[in-house]
């Protein structure tokens, strides 16, 4: 069966974000970490036509 990925985001982007989340709570995050988290959060924001996001 072919599975079509529904998340259009680049795997590298998601991998890096996940790496920051792993750091979270274990060491202080720097500006680049916070920027990445902010960018990932924005990538999931929605307009009313898009319903998959939940904050």
């Amino acid at each position, binding site marked *: 069966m072919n599975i079509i990925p529904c998340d259009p985001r680049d795997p590298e982007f998601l991998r890096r974000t996940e790496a920051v989340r792993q750091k979270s709570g274990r060491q202080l995050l720097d*500006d680049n970490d916070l*920027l990445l988290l902010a960018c990932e959060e924005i990538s999931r924001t929605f307009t009313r036509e898009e319903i998959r996001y939940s904050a």
Partner: protein
Amino acid sequence: MNKILVILPNNLGDVIMALPVLEGLKNKDPEVHITFFVETGYEGGLVGTPWCDRIFLFDRKAIRDGARTRNWRGSLDALKTIVEELVRERFRRIINLSQHPYAAYIAGLLSCPQTQGRVFLREGNHAVPDAWSRYLYAIPFGRAYNGLHATDIYRKIAGTADIPVRTPLTVGENEREEAGRFLQSRGIDPAGPPLMVLQPGAAYQAKRWPIEHFAALGRMLLDRGGTIVITGAAAETDSANSLQSLLNGAVVTAGVLSFRETIALLPHASGCVTGDTAIMHATAALGRPVYALFGPTNPVETGPYCPGAWVFSGRCPNRPCFCFECKTRLCMEAITPGDVYRAIREESPANATSDVYRTVVDADGVIRLDPLVGQGRPYYLPAGAALTRRFVDKDYAPEAPPSDGDIEALKNETMIVADAARTMAQSLTEFESTRSPDALRDYEKIRANLSSLSGVGVFWTALLNLRLNGVPLLDPAKGIAESRDLCREMADALTSALSIYP
């Protein structure tokens, strides 16, 4: 220079609801420099206002769309440039009124000495440092226990609640004259018969009053010799044209005038009939008569913010449900054109088939809905709302002791949370001395059990969790001690709040 950044990259209506905060900040300190961080496209309420020195446009959609592609690094760079520009401003204070998590990350990146609202800490957790912002965040967990309008909560967060709200939104003389010329060009004499603005569109289906109802009301107004302008955004042109086809002589501005040009019409109008829309907020902010038709949303929290506004609401047992789509649309359908027409004529609403309210300013300066006809499900429980407000504001004393509802239930559930918080503090104290994992397990178990509450305890639990979740745990011993103190503080504050009841 005292520079303040207000963050609210939300829709037009939310931005207009925040204008009294800017007015208050400016009146408190005329030298203050205010930058408003707003999403591109929603700046219409800020353009031309004397209360905002700089509108900082944030193109969220461009960054979002880029971040969803293989060129995500471009979005990251764009965001970095924005943050660097904000850092260079060296704000002394950030007031983050947004509940978007990304706004908390941006607030965290600015490392400002004073921040109200949600902020993401470099230790890796979201914190809400100030009590009124935590109150704002707790509302969705227990709406029945809040009687405050969002604007009043914003004012309390910003520390401007003591500054009277006078002219949060203004229309310049040139804009007003231009609007007058526009009306004349469409055959309406601004100095002639009463002009009513009808706004049939709203952000989503469940918030829209049926076009047939608008048409019936419009015909009553036209029969009385009035004139009508049908407003709306470009996307609402179809519904505006549909309404116009049912109202001979009505003028459509949807898709013709910008938001700013549209609100410049309002000083020429005798009022505006609208759902829960940005035009409703603008009409209220201009102090013009507004007839607000409420369905799935909550007029207590986001109704027209001005005294004397009319609010109508159908008696749907599920209100406020916050649904985008509704099969029955009972709440909106049940507001009859006759109910609104009688309000416009200042006639008694005694026979209204919907609930009818008027907004009043309380002695302590907050807006409240005064029910003229209120037979439907109440939007909140005054006795519970007084208790939650007293919890945050130690000086708050209601004009009359709360007597409605089940006060014993409110007391009992408040004491359950207070006792739980005390026991949680004891468990943490025990852990500090014994290092026993059982003590930590007890703490977590009590905390988890709070989720079984269903009354005002839900509100208290949300507040407690907001505080505990904001405690950094990079230094575990410090985190444990801070959590222990927070639990004690919470228990004491809850017990103290109960003094509101005789």
